């Protein structure tokens, strides 16, 4: 009875073939997740905000709230 010859070469290459695709895959997943959970929502949020933005209406609301120094609320 004899033992099977153990694998003596290519151990690092085998480890790399296993781990490197996972490493690159995970890092791309992290980047894509960041892109679709942070970057794109932020761009969309700005686009949506300005699509319906009425600067006159917003200005009047801020004016009535009294935040401006140069323009007092219309009652004053």
């Amino acid at each position, binding site marked *: 009875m004899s033992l099977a010859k153990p694998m003596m070469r290519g151990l690092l290459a085998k480890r790399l073939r296993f781990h490197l695709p996972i*490493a690159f895959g995970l890092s791309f997943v992290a980047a894509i997740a*960041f892109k679709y959970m942070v970057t794109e929502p932020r761009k969309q949020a700005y686009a949506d905000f300005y699509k319906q*933005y009425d*600067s006159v209406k917003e*200005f009047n609301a*801020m004016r009535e709230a009294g935040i*401006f120094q*140069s*323009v007092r609320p219309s009652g004053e």
Partner: protein
Amino acid sequence: MAHPSQLGFQDAASPIMEELLHFHDHALMIVFLISTLVLYIIVAMVTTKLTNKFILDSQEIEIIWTLLPAIILILIALPSLRILYLMDEINDPHLTIKAMGHQWYWSYEYTDYEDLGFDSYMIPTQDLTPGQFRLLETDHRMVIPVESPIRVLVSAEDVLHSWAVPSLGVKMDAVPGRLNQTAFITSRPGVFYGQCSEICGANHSFMPIVVEAVPLEYFENWSFLMLQDA
């Protein structure tokens, strides 16, 4: 202004600041990509039983870890240069304002048409009214017309200061004897806060900047009243 415990940038109030926000997201995405890769590799290296240190030749991996960073740097540099050139576009300003840094206040001069100038001191904490922001409010604000290109010429009368308003994406050093120029457009009306960004002495933290963007007719009323008061 910033909210309590805020980590990210303030909401953008100018087109350039919006571009800077998106570029930051792009660069941070690349940072996360690289960090995840490196973290995984570190964990793999720490948990291996393969410890043969005598490794000869490694041309393949040397090529990979030279080319890959070069490509990543190009992916970062291209949008960065785009914004850099966007910021330097010829913009034909409607108004030019001089912002002069002093120890420890800013003064603003509107000399396009008449001679309007005033100082802008921080409102001390004990004099604040409810709703005002500590260390950010000033007695006189720099009022500008909204959605108009504005040029600001920044200089200083004594030591180095820096005129910065984060939500507008603006920061420019105020150097005595030198005139620096920056430009911006406000996308929406409102009040935008900033603080001196170059150490200038004991009260460096107590010389804030407040920019108030209002429609043109109100800006004209304000400048008329300011000239009368002067």
